[in-house]
């Protein structure tokens, strides 16, 4: 009798309410081993991966804070092929936000691992001084550019009328280095090589942080990803090199964040998780 009550309690815990639905959830993230990682978040192979439903918390630790919850849960799945880890995140979102403009923000998500393994973990919120974390950040706006949205003001404002840009001067040969230099002159962030200014060949950027406010681009982005929006939810695949601790010990910790662009979330204004255990599981 006692055993059956306990089983029922565990069963209830495993059936978390998420976005109005009841879903089965594993107590931690299990990365199932596969021969080949999928490149698409909608690949049928994901049906084999266990789902961990993570509760998102407010970022209410450092200013500027988010004080009202927006996205409440993120569904997390993982697959690994021995050298890389693919993580699939999905969450409910009634508004697709993939245009960045004055007062307009984009949907986004991120997955974070400690750089160093071990039981003594850095703070889950961006790590801490001397104990950095590595982050793979996916942006819906970058996804739209990768998917073919032109990098042009008319893609944002279809009715825009522009008389003339300096780089369109008749004296500048189209495609010449002189013309590129003129265009860069009025795009300072791109001119100094800020990765957020593009061009974007992938929707993901690798970053390092050692505490709030310290986010820095990694020397190179080795992660990749793909996001799809359908039926009022995002499904995003982020693949990255297998974290060293996970590769060596079969266990690690990961943390996640989701930004709801429709709620004007960016930077520190986000929903996030604490550290969640992740383990490797041999393929079945």
């Amino acid at each position, binding site marked *: 009798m006692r055993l059956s009550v306990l089983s029922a309690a565990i069963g209830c815990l495993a059936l978390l309410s998420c976005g109005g639905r009841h879903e089965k959830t594993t107590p931690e993230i299990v990365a199932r081993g596969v021969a080949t990682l999928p490149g698409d978040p909608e690949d049928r192979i994901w049906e084999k991966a266990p789902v961990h439903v993570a509760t998102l918390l407010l970022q*209410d630790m*450092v*200013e*500027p*804070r*988010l*004080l009202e919850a927006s996205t409440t849960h993120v569904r997390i799945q993982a697959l690994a092929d021995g050298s890389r880890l693919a993580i699939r995140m999905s969450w409910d979102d009634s508004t697709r936000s993939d*245009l*960045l*403009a*004055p*007062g*307009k*923000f984009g949907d986004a998500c991120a997955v974070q691992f400690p750089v160093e393994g071990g039981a003594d973990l850095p703070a889950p919120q961006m790590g801490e001084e001397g104990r950095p974390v590595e982050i793979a950040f996916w942006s819906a*706006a970058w996804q739209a550019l990768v998917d073919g949205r032109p*990098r*042009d*003001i008319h893609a*944002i404002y279809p009715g*825009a009328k*522009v008389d003339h*840009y*300096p*780089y369109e001067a008749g004296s500048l040969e189209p495609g010449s280095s002189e013309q590129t230099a003129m*265009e860069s*002159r*009025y*795009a*300072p*962030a*791109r*001119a*100094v*090589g*800020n990765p*957020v*200014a*593009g061009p974007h060949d992938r929707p993901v950027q690798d970053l390092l942080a050692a505490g*709030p*406010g*310290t*986010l820095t681009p990694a020397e190179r982005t080795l992660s990749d990803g793909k996001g799809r929006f359908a039926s009022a939810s995002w499904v995003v695949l982020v693949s990255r090199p297998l974290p060293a601790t996970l590769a060596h010990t079969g266990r690690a910790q990961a943390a996640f964040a989701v930004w709801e662009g429709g709620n*004007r979330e*960016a*930077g*520190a*204004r986000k929903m996030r998780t604490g550290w969640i255990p992740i383990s490797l599981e041999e393929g079945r």
Partner: protein
Amino acid sequence: MALVHNWQLDRAMSYWYPESRPKKQFAAVFDTNKCIACQTCTLACKTTWTSGQGQEYMLWNNVESKPYGFYPLGWDVQLLERLGGQSWSGRHYEGRTIFEAAGAGERVLGWRPDELDYAYPNVGEDDSAGAELQTGAFMELPHTKWFFYLARICNHCTYPACLASCPRSSIYKRQEDGVVLIDQSRCRGYQECVRACPYKKTFFNPMTSTSEKCIGCFPKIEMGQQPQCFVNCIGKIRHVGWISRPEDARPDNPVDYLVHIRKVALPLYPQWGLEPNVYYIPPVHVPRSFLRMMFGPGVDHAIESYRKAPDDPDLVGLLSLFGSSPQIVPRWKRLGDSVIGLTEAGAEILRVPMKEPVHIRKAFDLAAGVTRTNTP
């Protein structure tokens, strides 16, 4: 939050970072009585710095008609309303600054303009305020209807709200000149600075996903030159220089003289607490209550002094230095009917007569064989 001193409020106030004044502080004086809203300053800035894709809507410099002109829409009244009562006791500010009024989880009391708030750069242009017209207008003196032109750039504040608000410390204030800049290599476009700057002089660039702002034409400043919006001002309403702290004010420093010594030039919305460094000689014809809201408690003294300028050779002399040189004029002196602009070391840059000599030319130019037209 740290406790810092804000001399414009005559008190200490809270700020996100400790007090750290630069070695020199960029400052400017704008004489609103001389501005004709020709927007030459606006275009000079636009063509120099913001002609690229994503910068179309940006006006690092703009001129708006007050009280009904705004760029972006409602930039000041939106905040005035949110901040609530802003009372002064003499020169002492008794209300809250935007740092002191920051809500839970915020560094600054701010608000985000909507996209469309940037769509009307000339809203309210030349619209008059004053008594409503019920039966038709007739000439009255002094005029009951009024408006004035307010030219605006970044105030390169001593306590910038943009800098305080950036969670990644991408905004910095240069020690050498006090110019406030957004590090374009570090900004990630969170738009916190757009939300925080009460003057709404930071702008998000949707094509680079970073925010941009007035850079004070620092490459020109580094060469001793005045910024573009200053040298292109055909009304000669602007003077750029360096401001000292009140206790260190020098009478031979033009900005110090106008701001600290004669007190004819006043900060814009000092009650917000940023210690802004563009100072305005207020318009003489506008209701004082409106001006006190906008420029603080020094309005009456400033206008009375300015009105007496014709009998005040030093004041009128210094005002005639405005717009007389492309170089920054950090020192000045009056010598009889001439005003002399000097370098820091005391070398003469220019000499301006306080009264232009009158030249009378004959109506017919014998040498050229043409009749002259009278084009002043």
